[in-house]
């Protein structure tokens, strides 16, 4: 028997979360370490439920969970884990009568930062990081959806936690802000972010986990996800009824996924191809 324990930033084993009879997360096992991990999957795959469990907001019905080497089912360790993680909920509801400064400072209080001067500096720092320095004293109700999203992101990042759990962080961000998000995320040590947008994965993530129906069906780099469709994507100028999927691209030619016929012009697969092939396998 081995006595060495390998500690991951996140280690989840056979996690289950049920809502009534439906299992939102159904026996999921994963580990995450330094770097940006993208959780990819269709709506309803259980990404949000998983992230809420990782953020210690929701208790799993079964399975084991270890966050930063701590067991969140033990109250004291749960509190300790909360000191060290930042969480961006899906469509965060922020009180509209607060300013971004008020709100982030308040979250810093909740994270037990008692030094007012330090808190003020830190609040300004994170709001500047997300590009909200010009509006930080305006009421949240006057801000756009993308700005509100960035207020919540700033609140998640306050205190520079070693673990960031972000539920759809790029929602409402324009391309420029997405680019900025990328450099922000590269500063954090471990990030787990959910998305249903494949281009975000290739832009932001070093690793990608694909979820279908509460289970993990793929774990690897974005390149490895694309490589799943290696030799199974081809293009020609008309639809192919034998392909698993065929669609017309912007150039007018048809792209096909499946077993290519003899002599077909096989092309390099993209992340989308790998994901679609996986989706087909999971939900025929």
């Amino acid at each position, binding site marked *: 028997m081995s006595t060495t324990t390998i500690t991951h930033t996140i280690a989840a084993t056979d996690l289950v979360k049920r809502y009534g009879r439906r299992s939102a997360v159904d026996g999921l096992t994963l580990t995450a370490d330094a770097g940006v991990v993208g959780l990819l999957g269709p709506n309803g795959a259980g990404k949000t439920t998983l992230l*809420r469990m990782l*953020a*210690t*907001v*929701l*208790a799993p019905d079964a399975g084991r969970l270890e966050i930063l080497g701590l067991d*969140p*089912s033990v*109250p004291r360790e*749960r*509190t*300790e884990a*909360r*000191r060290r*993680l930042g*969480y*961006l*909920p899906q469509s*965060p*509801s*922020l*009180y509209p*009568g*607060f300013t971004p*400064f*008020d*709100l982030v*400072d*308040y*979250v810093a*209080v*909740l*994270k*037990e930062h*008692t030094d*007012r001067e330090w808190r*003020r500096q830190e*609040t*300004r720092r994170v709001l500047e990081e997300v590009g909200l*320095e010009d509006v930080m*004293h305006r009421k949240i109700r006057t801000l756009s959806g993308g700005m509100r999203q960035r207020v*919540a992101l700033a*609140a*998640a990042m306050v205190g520079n936690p070693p673990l960031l*759990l972000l539920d759809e962080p790029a929602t409402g961000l324009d391309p420029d802000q997405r680019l900025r998000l990328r450099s922000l995320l590269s500063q954090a040590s471990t990030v787990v972010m959910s998305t249903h947008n494949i281009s975000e994965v290739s832009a932001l993530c070093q690793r990608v986990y694909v979820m279908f129906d509460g289970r993990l069906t793929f774990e690897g780099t974005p390149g490895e996800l694309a490589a799943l469709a290696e030799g199974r994507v081809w293009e020609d100028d008309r639809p192919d009824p034998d392909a698993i999927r065929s669609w017309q691209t912007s150039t007018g030619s048809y792209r096909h996924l499946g077993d290519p016929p003899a002599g077909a012009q096989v092309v390099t697969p993209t992340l989308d191809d790998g994901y679609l092939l996986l989706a087909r396998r999971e939900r025929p």
Partner: protein
Amino acid sequence: MSTREPWHLSSDQLAGYLAGTASRALVASVEAHLLACERCRSALAETSGPAPREEAWARLADEIDRPSPGTLPRLARGDRILRASIATPTMVAAALAAVVMVGAVPLLTALAAPQAGLVTLLVVAPLAPSIAVALAYREWCDPAGELAAATPMAGLRLVALRALAVSLVALPSSIAVLLAVDAWLSPVPIRFGLAWCLPGLALAALVLLAGTTRLDPWLASAVLGVGWSAAVAATVTVRRTLRPEQFLDGLATPEVQALALAVATGALLLTAARRHTVDTWGNA
């Protein structure tokens, strides 16, 4: 004359102008010259550079953000919690309700019939803290929404702080009413002002305890409120009087006060022991 080499500002003059040490006459000529001379304007820009300007802006922004010395009483975690507690619509409503209950209602009744007013105060005042506690349990009244659930302050600590914040508003208003009645309407025995405090604490502690169980704190506070009102009404019926002294004889006895203290202490101790059940973890 126009062909003469034009006069330009020396670096000493520019430095003196920038530092604000130049004489008023020199400042006037420097500014007049700068308006006309492109070369000296760029020399000025070079001398001052963007850094001091940025610094000035930063200093100004710093000034604006600097928290004003606290005018509100500071709780253990600074006044942001207090502000956050009573700034949301729910908590504003709670604080207003508390003020109305322990302030306006008895005052109006006292204007109509002084003795009935004091009895009314006796009925409603102890209910105010328990309603404050019930409101503090509503998780949707947090300005940061689910973001707050993943912080170390989440749970009973936050609930207790919020309840305390509302009580801090309600308590002075009840004392003010007593002083007003005493001054203008009829003398109030000092013990009247204190007799309801321990029963009020006991009721609030019971609601706090209810929040650590599956019971709805709202329901608990409603049941306790009805029970308390019934007890006072029963006293009115049995003794056939609205004279406050009659209630005081019953309420201010050492036995009743000791019982209230015992209930409050017991409920608070039990709540402390069960504090970990107040958490979205395991309850959502």
